Each structure stands twice: as structure tokens, then as C-alpha cells.
């Protein structure tokens, strides 16, 4: 038997363990799974067709109209009666369903990406900050920043009702002042009364220009905001305010809230994006916060602090990359959900404005003709919705398996 020196073992150790990063590992696991590959394929086909159609196969929905081709069944060869080819048939206005389905994909994907982008950015950031400041000592500057943010956040509701954007800024200022004065006004009750009073003035004052009723509502809101701002700001208070707001949003049924927001903003694809995005915010906020709370207890965060890293760097360089996996999975699943929501809004006539091509709107346009035998007008957009949602869900499942920390070796 030959003796091995520690150097040999070191070399062997290095040779066995191939050098690769966590993300590369995850990618390999992802492409080795059949479901994920199928999901990627479906999603890829939809994205590719939508992008290609948008840039190279221009379509103007407003001029697309041909009553002579009304509700023709799918045909793959041109005949004397129907000169053009319609692989998916035509709808009630004689429009080619294939073309509209492909272009609808562009709209649906756009809604999905923008809506999820809104939820992810706002929700993720709020959750990240809430989770971080809940468990870490905050510095004076951060206190000012958070309190200002809280003021802006809470004040914007009253500012919105009164139609006076300046109010939101005033409340932001109140939040900052609250921190600056925290050493001078120590008496808890004096502070509370003082800030509630200032809140009343800030809320009701600008709103009086609009009307007495608005002034009453805004004054009431102002008192509450002022009272909250008078509290000694700790990370926990900030986290509580954010998460309770998320609970309020979550307490509404998702579709109902989206419909209410669209009804308020007016129909249109962009408004639909905002509505679906807002409804999705709490999901990401909760997910991000819970992930932060579990990551922040790891010793490498303490180690980062003990070498003197600043809070901002700890958040974005140490915590953020470590909470990415659940967020990536949720985002992929969320895309499916957003596409479905967009279709639902479109179906109800609240999303895309006709004659714009959008899957939900196409369904809503054509379901009445199902009884007269025009199955193709409903089948293809429906199939597109189903397949794209399936594709994103399969991909999400695959990502979840690939990114599962328990599988990391």
C-alpha cells in the first residue's frame, strides 16, 4: 500500500470536484428534466412567434375587416370560394384567427411581463426592506429614509383622494421631521397629539380646495397617518405597516380587485397591466420577506457585518442573490397567472380594447357563435391561453426542482 501525502489528497479533492457555480448547477438540473424542457419549448414557441409576428408580420387590427369571409372554418388550401388560406378559420368579422392568435400572444406576454414586473419590483423591494429592517439595527439615515418612505406611502392615498399630489410630499416631510425631532419630543402622548394634529392640517388643508366632504375624509386619513408617523420608528414598525397593507390588498378577491381597479382607471391593455400588477404585489412582498427572514439568520450575514459591510451592500449583495431562487420560481408561475388574469379581463371587455387582438377578448368576441357551429373561433385562442399557461407552469415546476436548496450538493 502506498502512502498518500496531504498534498495528494488536496489534489485529488480538487480533481473530483469540478469547478462550477450554483447557477450552472441549477441550469444543468433544469435541462435534464423532461417537464422543464417541455415547458421551455412551449414558452419558447410562444415568445418566438409573438416577437417575430410583432416585428416582421405587421398587423393593423383597425383595418382588418372582410365580411365576405365571415366565420369560415379552417382551410389549409385555397379554393375558389375562399382565396386565402386560414389555418385556424376566420371570426365574425372575417379576420384570420391564426394571425390574431399569434398577435394576441404579443399582447398577452406583454401584459404578463409588465404586470409581473410591477408586482415583482414593488412587492419584492418592500418585502426585502421589511424583512431586512425587521431583524437588523437601523441607522439614523435609514430611519429618516424609511420614515419618509412610510409618509410618502401612507400620504399618497389621501393625496390621491384629494387630487393634491403635494400632500404626499408634505407627509413625507412629516415622516422625516418625526425622526429629526425624536430626541426633542420624548413625551409619548404629546408627540401623538402633535403629529395627529399636524396630520389633520396636512390632510384636510389642501383637500378643502376640492370640497368639504373630501376634506373630512382626508383629514381623518391625515390623523391616522400622523399618529403612525409619531411612533418611534423601528424596522419592526415599518415592516408591520408594509405587511398589514399587503394583508389589506390580499383580503380582496384577486379578480374582483383587478376589475375594480380597471373600472376605476378605465379599460385598456396598459390599465390591465397595472391592475394585475397591483393585485400581485402582496404575493411577492410576503415571499421576499419570508425568504429574507430565513437568510438573515445565516452566519454569513453576521460575518458580513463583522467585516464592516454597509447595510445596502448586505441587502443587495448578500441577501438578494440568496433569496432569488423562490422568487424566480414564483415569477415564472406568476407569468402564467398574469396571462390568465389578462385573458379574464379581456373576456369581460376590460382589458384590450376591441378590435385589438388579445386572447381573452377574442374568446369574448366569439363565444356566442359556438352554438352556430363556429368552434374554431373559440378553440384556438382558448388553446393558446391553455398552452401558454401550461408552458409557464411546467417551466416553473422545473425551476422549482432545479433551484431547490435541498438538492444542492
Amino acid at each position: 500500500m502506498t502512502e498518500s501525502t496531504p498534498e495528494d489528497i488536496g489534489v485529488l479533492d480538487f480533481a473530483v470536484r469540478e469547478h462550477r457555480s450554483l447557477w450552472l448547477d441549477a441550469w444543468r438540473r433544469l435541462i435534464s428534466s423532461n417537464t422543464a424542457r417541455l415547458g421551455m419549448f412551449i414558452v419558447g414557441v410562444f415568445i418566438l412567434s409573438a416577437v417575430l409576428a410583432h416585428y416582421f408580420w405587421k398587423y393593423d387590427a383597425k383595418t382588418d375587416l372582410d365580411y365576405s369571409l365571415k366565420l369560415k372554418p379552417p382551410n389549409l388550401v385555397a379554393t375558389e370560394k375562399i382565396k386565402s388560406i386560414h389555418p385556424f378559420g376566420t371570426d365574425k368579422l372575417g379576420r384570420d384567427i391564426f394571425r390574431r392568435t399569434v398577435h394576441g400572444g404579443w399582447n398577452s406576454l406583454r401584459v404578463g411581463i409588465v404586470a409581473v414586473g410591477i408586482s415583482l419590483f414593488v412587492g419584492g423591494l418592500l418585502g426585502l426592506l421589511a424583512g431586512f429592517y425587521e431583524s437588523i439595527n437601523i441607522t439614523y439615515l435609514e430611519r429618516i429614509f424609511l420614515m419618509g418612505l412610510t409618509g410618502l406611502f401612507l400620504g399618497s392615498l389621501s393625496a390621491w383622494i384629494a387630487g393634491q399630489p403635494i400632500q404626499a410630499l408634505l407627509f413625507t416631510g412629516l415622516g422625516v421631521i418625526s425622526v429629526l425631532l425624536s430626541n426633542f419630543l420624548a413625551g409619548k402622548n404629546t408627540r401623538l397629539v402633535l403629529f395627529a394634529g399636524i396630520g389633520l392640517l396636512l390632510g384636510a388643508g389642501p383637500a378643502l380646495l376640492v370640497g368639504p366632504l373630501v376634506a373630512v375624509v382626508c383629514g381623518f386619513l391625515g390623523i391616522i397617518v400622523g399618529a403612525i408617523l409619531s411612533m418611534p420608528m423601528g424596522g419592526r414598525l415599518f415592516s408591520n405597516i408594509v405587511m398589514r397593507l399587503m394583508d389589506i390588498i390580499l383580503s380582496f378577491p384577486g379578480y374582483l380587485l383587478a376589475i375594480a381597479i380597471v373600472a376605476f382607471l378605465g379599460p385598456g391593455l396598459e390599465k390591465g397591466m397595472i391592475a394585475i400588477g397591483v393585485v400581485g404585489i402582496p404575493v411577492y412582498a410576503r415571499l421576499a420577506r419570508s425568504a429574507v427572514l430565513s437568510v438573515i439568520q445565516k452566519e454569513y450575514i453576521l460575518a458580513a457585518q463583522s467585516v464592516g459591510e454597509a447595510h445596502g451592500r448586505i441587502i443587495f449583495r448578500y441577501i438578494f442573490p440568496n433569496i432569488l431562487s423562490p422568487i424566480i420560481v414564483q415569477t415564472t408561475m406568476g407569468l402564467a397567472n398574469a396571462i390568465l388574469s389578462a385573458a379574464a379581463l379581456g373576456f369581460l371587455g376590460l382589458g384590450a380594447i376591441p378590435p385589438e387582438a388579445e386572447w381573452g377578448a377574442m374568446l369574448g368576441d366569439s363565444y356566442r357563435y359556438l352554438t352556430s357551429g363556429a368552434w374554431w373561433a373559440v378553440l384556438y385562442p382558448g388553446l393558446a391561453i391553455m398552452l401558454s399557461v401550461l408552458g409557464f407552469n411546467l417551466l416553473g415546476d422545473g425551476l422549482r426542482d432545479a433551484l431547490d436548496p435541498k438538492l444542492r450538493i
Partner: protein
Amino acid sequence: MEPLLKIKNLKTRFHTEDGIVNAVNGVSYSMDAGEILGVVGESGCGKSVHALSIMRLIPCPPGNIESGEVWLDDRDLLKISEAEMRHVRGAEIAMVFQDPMTSLNPVYTVGFQITEALMLHKNIDKLEARERARELLTLVGIPEAKKRLDNYPHQFSGGMRQRAMIAMALSCEPRLLIADEPTTALDVTIQAQIIDLVVRLQDQLGMAVMWITHNLGVVAELAHKINVMYAGYIIERGDTGDIYKRTRHPYTMGLLGSLPRLDEAPGTKLISIPGLPPDLVALPKGCPFYARCTYRVGQCLEEMPPLVEADGKEHTVACWRWDTLQGGLRDDG
């Protein structure tokens, strides 16, 4: 000589739902430059919390440093701003933690994390930092340091991760290294290697080391001085020889009695200290060790004994009956 670190009456509390936890109750001592100090005690006796208080890394809320002073040179670390404190952390005082499995960030390479720490406090560019990181990894005994820089923590074994952690902590040449149970999660052979490593580095770099552990055997080998902590108090403090051979406090005697000895006859039973440490939420008025002490007298229940000198200036003990008690290991032990 002016001491490196001077701690006066440090008190740390945690405000929890169950009440106020008195984790550190007025700890005072000083450390010289280049000194190795062992801090020993049972779990939950305030060893780690007092170290984190020095670094001001106690999560607040629920934790709070109620009072005290921590002097490093002419600065009170508890009074300076958070921004100044950030420069102290890493550059002047660095820390190594217990669990090497979670103390490195899994999403970055080891080299990245060391260069990151370097560039934070030193005005050097990336290439220099990388070269320095390689030197550091070699210094802590990692073979093929250059290749290892590009490895992720999961490609390192536990002992190697702890070495990498030490390299990271040493990166800015701190004057004090706080090692919070750095060998607890490692097996015995690796423990010995890490202890040798720290002793060697301490010798080479001349920094002071605070070694926190519950293992009396570990500190006996390496420490110059030892603080024995119990329920948030230092109950005995002195040179390593004094603590082990001229033990004055019944608790320290109990700890030593519970260690297995090579020179004892086979079959000798280990003596354990009966009972549990007191609840830190409701500390007794008198000595916290009263309930478990075999030498207790009435006064112990009434009043916490102050830390007084026994056997000269360097050996202090907090016990009313220190002058009647003497124990410890035999000289040949």
C-alpha cells in the same frame, strides 16, 4: 502598558415576550495587545453575547446594550457612530463564527468574498486584492490557493471553510480577533489543526485573540488568561495556570471536576455540577450559582459577591468564600 481593549461594566439585555433576559450583567476586564484570552462557560452564560456587544452586532430590538464602556485606544465603541463602527469592524476587530457551514455566502466564490473584505478597508485594486487573498489562503494552509480562490463554499470541507473564514477575518490585519467557538462544529483532528493555525498566526501577526469556547481543554493549551463566565457575570478571571491549578471559585472547580482525566484510575466517575444555570429572566438577588453550589452560606443568597483579588492582582474571583476554597488540577496534571 496601555491595554488594547478595556471593557467597563458592560450590560446587555434582551427584551423578549417572556420578560427581560439579563444576558450580560456588568462585565469589566481589559486585554493587552497580543494576548490570547479564553472565555469559558456553559451555553447561555453570555460568552457570545458579550462578544457581539463589543462588535455592536446585537440585534436591537430585542437586544439592547444597557450600559457600559468598550474602549479601543481612545474611542468608546459604544458611543461612536455606526459609520465609524463599520470601520472598526473588520479593520480593527474581526470575528470568526461557530458554524463554518453557514458562515460563507453560498452564492459567491471564496476568493470573491475575501477580496470583497479586503477592498472594503484597504485602498487597493482588484488584482492586488486577489493576490493578497491568495497569500491569505496560503497563510491559513489551503493548498493550491490560486485555484481554490475560484471555488464556491460548497466545494470546501468544513475545516477548509473555517480556514477561509479565518483568512477573511485576518484580511485587514485586525488587532483583535474574536473567535466565537470556531472549533465546536469541527471534528477533533481538525479542531487541533485550527487551534495550531490560530496560535501560529497570533505569533506571526502579533494580534490579540479572544477565544470563546465551552471546552476547557482547548483554552488550556492556548490561552494566556481566562475569563470564566456564569449567568452573564465573570466569576473568575486569571492567568491560565492560576485558573487550572489554584482554582478559587466553586463553579470553576465544578467545571474542572467534570473533565475526564488521563491520570485518574479507570472507573473513576466524573463529577457533574447538579442542576441548571439560573433563568436569566429572573436572576436571583445573590450569587447566581447559589442553587448549585456545595459551599454556599447565607450571605450568598443575600448579595452578589464582587470580583475581588485573590492570590495577587491578576487572579480575581467573585465568591464570598474564596479564601477558604482552593481546588484545581494537580501540578503534574
